[in-house]
């Protein structure tokens, strides 16, 4: 449950949401794209109030917001390239975005560039369920790139990965959003990710904002209480 959360995020900022399990991080990030309906309050994304939008208008807002999930959520039996192409459904509907075999040449080329950006052009024609966890999450990032979003929301994108793969995915996510000047709001259970990749750290506890400060001035000792991980 969230209560009294007031969180304006300026364009281009990278915000880390931290907090123990059940603090409301995922609820907050999912409610930003209307995946969870709040009982009260107002959620405004890209100048558009989310609540009460028709299906068509909600889709229009969602198309401008990339979402990276805890699990990659790729279509397992489809090829990697097809999965990346699905990102174009934010802009176009119709069969040409359903599968790489039906896609226009320009869209295929753009999808290949997105795969290059995440360092995986060689797996383009492999089935998504043949990839490792880290590779899958990188393909999910390529799908977000294909979407051409203005904001990227990431709900613990490293949660299902080993520490090394998790670090790699976070570095990639941070680099691609910074390179394109996108707003990034990410949830992380790893303190060093918040410190390395965020401009601002917001700590949640019991559905409320307990701390909101620039990452540059954040004190790791103070932030550790938000994490389930033991003190080092």
């Amino acid at each position, binding site marked *: 449950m969230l209560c009294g959360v007031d969180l304006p995020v300026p364009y281009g900022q990278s915000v880390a949401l931290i907090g123990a399990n059940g603090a409301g991080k995922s609820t907050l990030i999912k409610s930003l794209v209307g995946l969870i309906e709040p009982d009260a309050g107002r959620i405004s994304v890209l100048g558009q109030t989310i609540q009460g939008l028709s299906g068509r208008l909600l889709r229009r807002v*969602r198309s401008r917001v990339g979402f990276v999930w805890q699990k990659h*959520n*790729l279509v397992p039996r489809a090829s990697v390239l097809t999965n990346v192409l699905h990102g174009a459904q934010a802009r176009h509907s119709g069969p040409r975005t359903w599968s790489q075999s039906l896609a226009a040449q320009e869209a295929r080329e753009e999808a290949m560039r997105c795969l290059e950006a995440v360092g995986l052009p060689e797996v383009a024609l492999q089935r998504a369920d043949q990839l490792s966890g880290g590779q899958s999450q990188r393909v999910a990032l390529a799908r977000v790139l294909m979407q051409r979003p203005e904001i990227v929301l990431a709900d613990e994108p490293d949660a299902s990965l080993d520490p090394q793969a998790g670090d790699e995915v976070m570095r990639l996510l941070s680099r691609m959003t910074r390179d394109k000047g996108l707003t990034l709001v990410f949830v992380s259970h790893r303190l060093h990710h918040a410190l390395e990749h965020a401009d601002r750290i917001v700590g949640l506890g019991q559905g409320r904002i307990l701390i909101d400060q620039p990452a540059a001035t954040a004190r790791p000792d103070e932030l550790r209480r938000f994490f389930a991980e033991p003190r080092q």
Partner: protein
Amino acid sequence: MTTEVAHAPTVPRIELKSPLEYIVWLLLLLIVVWSLQGTAPPLEGLAKGLARLFAPSGMLAQMFPPDLSRLDRVIWKLVETLQMAIAGVVLGLAMALPLAILAADGLSPHPILRVAARALIAFFRTVPDLIWAIVFIIVVGLGPAAGVLAIMVDKIGFAGRFFAEAMEETDKGPRDALAALGATRMGVIASAVIPAAMPSFIATSLFALEKAVRGSVALGLVGAGGIGVDLKVAFDLFDYDQALTIILLIFVLVLGVEQASAWIRRRII
């Protein structure tokens, strides 16, 4: 020295039932006995019938050797039977898919549409294909067209239900991911749901084809085309050697389709 043997608690071999349970079991038994008494063949009659079947001048003896004089016609009718099954199944599957989407939880655009689609699928499924064949004979006349339409409607009912269930059971993760990036309902279904349900679709479709090949033989018995017509005529005219040829060829066809379908299933799924 004395030792005390600890006694484990004893449990009854058969747990005592409540009187109501005894009554239910007794009623079930009575229903079975009543059904057997009403319909099962009397043992004496069955023995006489079997004796006639195996007698030197009985039906079995008259079946051998099988009559191959009209083999070309029988093979052609067998091909027609296969054509009926393929055409009926393809048309039925093509119509079952949109209906299944309308009937599936979480994919249907409106609850009323979902209920209506489910009711239609249930109706198509519960009416036997022989009844559909009779209906379509009235509509389009005797011949394979009636058989194709009967198979089509039967397969809409059969595949519609399984397609809907397969789509409902797909992982919600990819669906949510596409919905969250602004994909349309159709985009989500075509990109995430159908690919995930494809193995189940293929298995259901192949099973539908096997079922249709077997079923299309029976449809001929009521005049809806295919080899069944010839089989009925052979029996009516006591051409048991001709009937055996037809039965053997039907067996080869059904076995061939089953083997081919098992091979395709192994290769694709």
